[in-house]
């Protein structure tokens, strides 16, 4: 009996350990977050009357979306979609072709220091600006149309792909690289037989992922004049043809789903 008595002396309640262990830091974080949210909401400057007005308008807006009508503007939708697809394909290919030298240069274990710094700078610069800003400038320089979109998407692709390629090369297994080097391979042979096979499977997956991103982004470069489905979408919005707009959005979603499924399939096939 005395044994059970000792057991009941154990604490019957348990409190889960907090996520942030240091008490002062935890309270500072909570307090800071609360103040930030208060100030942030305070400066939102929401015109609630306009929002209230917008709710019935939003209902009408959503009602106008249904049913989606791809048929009345089918020709221009098809034209826009195809233009987006061409643009996406060549931008992805050209962007990746450009990223390979930049990525090799931006890998610390491959490139000499000045080349490394230069390539990192190129990557940082092209990663900073969203595709839309790049597209605005491309349209200014190259005129309206899909070529401007192609340039903008290619530059954005370099920022994305070269960075991941460089990081992958930095993470590679140095043993294989050393053994190829020990056979007396030239620099190109070394890249081709030691580095490339190690990074290839992941890079193919990322290329498919970038194709997917570029397609999605091709819908917005059109808004600033870069050609593709975005231009058609903007026209549909401007003409208040929301049923056509809904159809375009649905088509974009379907194509992205298809690409995602396809890239999963391809990745399994590569590995």
């Amino acid at each position: 009996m005395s044994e059970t008595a000792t057991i009941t002396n154990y604490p019957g309640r348990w409190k889960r350990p907090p996520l942030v262990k240091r008490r002062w830091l935890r309270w500072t974080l909570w307090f800071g977050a609360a103040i930030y949210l208060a100030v942030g909401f305070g400066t939102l400057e929401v015109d609630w009357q306009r929002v209230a007005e917008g709710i019935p308008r939003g209902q009408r807006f959503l009602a106008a979306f249904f049913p989606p009508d791809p048929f009345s503007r089918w020709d221009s939708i098809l034209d826009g979609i195809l233009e987006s697809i061409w643009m996406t394909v060549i931008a992805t290919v050209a962007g990746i072709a450009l990223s390979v030298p930049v990525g090799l240069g931006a890998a610390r274990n491959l490139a000499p220091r000045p080349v490394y710094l230069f390539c990192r700078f190129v990557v940082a610069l092209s990663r900073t600006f969203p595709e839309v800003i790049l597209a605005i400038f491309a349209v200014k320089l190259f005129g309206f149309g899909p070529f401007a979109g192609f340039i903008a998407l290619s530059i954005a692709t370099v920022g994305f792909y070269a960075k991941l390629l460089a990081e992958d090369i930095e993470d590679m297994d140095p043993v294989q690289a050393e053994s190829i080097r020990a056979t007396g391979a030239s620099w190109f042979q070394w890249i081709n037989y030691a580095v490339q096979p190690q990074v290839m499977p992941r890079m193919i997956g990322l290329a498919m992922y970038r194709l997917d991103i570029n397609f999605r982004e091709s819908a917005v470069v059109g808004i600033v004049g870069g050609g593709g489905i975005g231009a058609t979408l903007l026209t549909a919005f401007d003409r208040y043809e929301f049923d056509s707009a809904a159809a375009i959005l649905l088509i974009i979603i379907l194509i992205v789903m298809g690409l995602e499924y396809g890239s999963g399939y391809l990745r399994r096939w590569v590995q």
Partner: protein
Amino acid sequence: MAVYETDDGPVWKRRTTRHEWMVWLGWLAATAIFVYCFKLVSDKTIWFFVLDAGTQAQDMASRMVPPKWSYMDDLWRPVWDTINIATLGTVLALIMAVPTAFLAAKNTTPHPTVRAIALFVIVSSRSINSLIWALMLVAIIGPGILAGVIAIGLRSIGFCAKLLYEAIEEIDVTQVEAIEATGATRAQQLSFGIAPQIMPAFAGISVFRWDINIRESTVLGLVGAGGIGLQLEASISTLAWTQVSLILLVILATVIVSEWVSAKVRHAII
């Protein structure tokens, strides 16, 4: 890998002949597609403007320097708004993404139909760019920061929920079973068995998305949804190139700072 016996002894090759042919055909097909697509795009291009780009670029560059530093006084508020759009949008997205992720994860979803709907929500949110969400929201609730916040929120649900549900599917089931064995309800299992396991992933995802959102919220102003994009649009349409260059520098600085913050925080978590 293949070794061929020849008269001069074995020759090592990286691929078998059949494999070499397959690779060659793959390259041929890819090149053909590329050339075809390029031709279609080039048909729609006015090459005169493209060839003129060099002079245009020089002209634009000469108009852009030096940046008009005094314009900075008008930019502090838009920068603050931009950061607010990104932060509040991320918070909004996380609030909606957590239930979506639990409904979409194979091991926590109540029903396969619910899972399919949740996956569709994720794909739709990911497929439609925040600029397009903003375009629609500005039409509904009027121009302003709120439209930007909601646009960023809707756009980020997909990203956050996708990464989160993948984290949920990869949890260690033994811990959940142990909690279940104590007689815990499903809600308690969620709170004590699953939540602690996905907490690091959750924190990482939030900071990662916040960093991306800073970048995206800089352009929402182009369609009237607040932030520094409004000033960018105004400066470009009035051809005030010295202001444009300053705005680009400010965006660059904001993005670099946010990337640094996010890297620090993620480093602290992981």
